[in-house]
């Protein structure tokens, strides 16, 4: 079972991946 802190780490990494994807999408959309 994951505790609250572990869930925070997973959330951070998920948001990180989404941020990079968003930046990549921005680059692709305008080029």
């Amino acid at each position, binding site marked *: 079972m994951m505790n609250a802190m572990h869930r925070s780490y997973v959330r951070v990494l998920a*948001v990180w991946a989404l941020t990079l994807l968003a*930046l990549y999408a*921005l*680059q692709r959309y305008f*080029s």
Partner: protein
Amino acid sequence: MHLFDWVVLLGLAAWIVYDGLKRTKDSQELEGYFLAKRSIPWWAAGISVMATQLSAITMIGTTGQGYNDGLRFIQFYFALPVAMVLLSVTLVPFFYHSGVYTAYEYLERRFDAKTRAFTSLLFLISRGMSCGAVISAPAVVLSLVLNWDLTTTALAIALPAVVYTMFGGVQAVTWTDVKIMTIIVFGLFAVIVVAILGFPAGVSVGDGLSIAAATGRLRTFDFSFDLTNQYTFWSGTIAALFLFCSYFGTDQSQVQRYLTARSVDEARHSLLMSAYWKIPLQVLVLLLGVLVFVFYVFTPPPLLFSRVETERLTTGPAAAAYTALESEYATALDARRTAATDLATARRSGDSARIQAGRDAMRQGDVEVNRVRARAAGLVREQSGDRRFSDVNYITPTFILTQLPVGLVGLLMLAIIMAATDTIAGELNSLSTATVIDFYKRWVTTSATDAHYLTVSKIATGVWGLFACGVAVWAAELGSLIEVVNRFGSFFYGSILGVFILAIGVPFATGNGAFVGLIAGMTSVAWVASYTSVAFLWQNVVGAVAVVITGTLVGLMERAGRSNVR
């Protein structure tokens, strides 16, 4: 600046310092002064971590970089969230539970006194010098932009920091950081809104971004694997991971921010706050530069943003050459503006061939504008003899002073000055902590009252503040010395991370191993920096790996030696 801007600047600055001091409690005890008696909420500690890194150089240099180069620089921060998670799992609980005041204090518990003293001394030297650079870079720009004398500007940046750090300790630093960060973020959004409102009718934000993209300014990812290039996806995710683990995990100016949190989980959450917000915040900073670029595509910018250099050129022997460049520049700007307008129109038509032609014309137009600007900068270098002259730091201050409405100019100038002030405050606080805890209390007067150590801490803060001001004011003369010290500091980042990896990850590592490893790591980085063109970020990997290998080998040899003796 208008009188009302001065009222906003001075009024808000006075309130921030006053309120920071008012919120300070129990600062007559050492734990209250240095660690806020571990009472700071996680979000305030987290904002403080981010504020300490966001200096005036970010406000004027990074936004200028966005104007010139676009979003490419963001790759530098890609590893930061991963570093924060790694540190939250590994170093943060070690520091927090061991009850240390400084990161280096932990090294004495794990290894020995010499490793602690050496790492702390390296921190004091490199951070003390960088404090001067943090003041001098914006002071030089602001003194020219605002027509102030350099010493006055340096003092305007540093004195408030010295005062509230000296009297309020870490609590005043944290609470002023929170307010300054709020003003900075509000200011960044305000500049972005003003830049967008300045687009001509018929040019949307999408068109503006498309114009910027045509010049390559929205290119964020560079997947080429090149060890000599600082800004690639790989250096940003692999090499920068080592730098961020070192900076946030072992640099006292950062460690002290989260040691003030109420519990270990709150300390972790304060770090994770940067993990969430650092990349978006840096994107905002760079995007500001990109949108100011789009604004200046439609509103003719000066050939050089540095007013002083422009005046010098127009009144000096190169006046004729400069005037010729200005007329070339006007033609290039016209062509670029026409290309941008055509691209915006083509986007509305939806005709992909026209859009592509518009992009090509825009790119060509921008290349021509940049070529003329580069020649003008070359003229400055030639005439002034300043080989390092760059116009990049003058772009944002010029935009703020010439395009923002009264009131916002004062707020933004305050944001730039206070961005430097809060970075200095965090650093002075950590310099004073390391001086008192790692040296004075450890080697000079080992058992005295809290009141005694507090007095010494306040004196240390004041002395480091004076030292930083001195370095800032004499920065021009000390130029090469500061560079040497910064270079020396960069040798240290990866290596000190290696020492902490040894401390936590290698059970049989010894004090001698850590000490020899640290020297081997710094020597390796010095060699790589001097004899190869490997980019700075990768040097951190070299340092950390060299320390871990050397430290492990020395540890193994010592263990073998002890077994033989038995």
